[in-house]
């Protein structure tokens, strides 16, 4: 197919304009009804909960650091592994799972 044929096909197709009259009928009424309905819909407070993730993360980190400082061991690694050893031993003696 050459460009001339394609241009001719476009020119012929342009002879038909899409008929939108039926779809346009009462469109503004439907649209304003939708806008009013959208405005009335209240957004629940928890819809924005994901936005609080950075704040929650900061609080958790701050609490962790504070707990570590308060424990007074000065060694984060032993504070974590010490508890882990204890719970492993407890599980061994009681026959439970961790």
């Amino acid at each position, binding site marked *: *197919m050459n460009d001339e044929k394609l241009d001719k096909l476009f020119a012929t197709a342009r002879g038909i304009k899409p008929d939108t009259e039926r779809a346009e009928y009462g469109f503004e009424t439907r649209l304003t009804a939708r806008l009013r309905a959208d405005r009335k819909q209240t957004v629940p407070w928890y819809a924005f909960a994901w936005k609080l993730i950075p704040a929650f993360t900061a609080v958790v980190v701050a609490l962790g650091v504070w707990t570590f400082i308060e424990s007074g061991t000065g060694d984060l690694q032993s504070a974590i592994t010490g508890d882990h050893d204890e719970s492993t031993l407890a599980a061994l003696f009681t026959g439970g799972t961790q």
Partner: protein
Amino acid sequence: MHALMDSFIELPTVSPPTNNGRAMSAAIDELTDEHLIQSTLAGDDEAFAELVRRHKRKVFGIAARFARNDHELDDICQEIFVKAYQKLKGFRGESPFEHWVSRIAVHACYDFLRRTRHDRENISLDGIEIGTLDNVSARDAAEILQWAMVRLSAEERLVIALLELEEKSVRETAELTGWSESNVKVRAFRARQALKKILETSHER
């Protein structure tokens, strides 16, 4: 209606006061798009409805190139005008409202094409023979093109619709799509090549 009524004060009365409905309708007709935008921003839904009434033909014309039926057309146009309503505060008035809303329409149509591309490839030609394409009617030509264009990418389809069917210039197409003029030319060239290939292949079959 308060904001709209306020702007009536500056306008001449065009009908006798006994015929309030007609007077109001005539007064709305005389309001500029800028007046209607200000009234809409002040919370007047009727003013926005008038803006929609004025510009819906243009928007429907653009969207109808991509929608498969009236239901889809209504959905796309609602999306366009809802976006226009939400972005109205950002309208600076640097270009006419019609151009501004046309840009929103083109972007919404592009998003729509990207979303629905895979649904569209199984459109059939309903018994139309592509043949030599020499003496096809306008309706058949439109259907053949629609059939071939669904096989193009969203960018290619958009550029063909604007340049070849809506007869926009390269510059207008660039403004509507937000692409550079050279980008429009490149995409148009590729789209034409792809379209020719599709039509050739279907002809050989």
